């Protein structure tokens, strides 16, 4: 079974530039998550999709971050314009999801973003 695919693996941009990350979840997984992991901290949820609808985006800085999950499959996360404090690893995860279903989430390898 193919895992969660993310690209690119690494990205270096200057502040005020824009950047986009792509995620392809495990086939059939209804729920998709984007997490931000700053060095020395645990992953922090940015946005959660159930199929193509947003379940939780309370921690997403909406003035600069946006995300979409077209057709309930692939997802993109965009930052525009980037700030120095956005330097982090961006992790995409998916799970079979659904209310009442306790299961693990599967993570991609992440995209390491450095803003200079």
């Amino acid at each position, binding site marked *: 079974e193919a895992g969660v695919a993310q690209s690119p693996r690494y990205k270096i941009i200057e502040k005020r530039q824009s950047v986009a990350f792509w995620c392809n979840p495990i086939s059939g997984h209804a729920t998709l*998550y984007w*997490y931000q992991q700053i060095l020395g901290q*645990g*992953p922090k949820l940015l946005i*959660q999709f159930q199929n193509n609808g947003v379940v939780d985006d309370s921690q997403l800085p909406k003035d600069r971050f946006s995300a979409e999950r077209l057709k309930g499959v692939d997802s993109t996360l965009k930052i525009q314009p980037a700030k120095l404090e956005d330097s982090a690893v961006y992790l995409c*995860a998916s799970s079979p999801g659904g209310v009442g279903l306790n299961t693990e989430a599967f993570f991609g390898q992440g995209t390491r973003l450095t803003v200079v």
Partner: protein
Amino acid sequence: DQQVKQNSPSLSVQEGRISILNCDYTNSMFDYFLWYKKYPAEGPTFLISISSIKDKNEDGRFTVFLNKSAKHLSLHIVPSQPGDSAVYFCAALDPGTYKYIFGTGTRLKVLA
């Protein structure tokens, strides 16, 4: 406000001995907990989980214990191996939104 806490940033253990990683949580509504392991430059990988209807779950060398009254869980690795050296994250599944809430991680180093 940190709902899942791992108060030990790092732990060193001799090969063959037991590693004990601890985790505390604040929300008594949490009823499903997970441990993830993370190597450098890789995403977290699922290790083991426990539901609140149990107080122990075992998978090979890994055992997770849950103390609901203390809102505390721990991961035991016996015997520890050098390949276990990684960062371990404790997580809780929010039963309202089904989002995973992570602790800050504990870096385990197993010394050969």
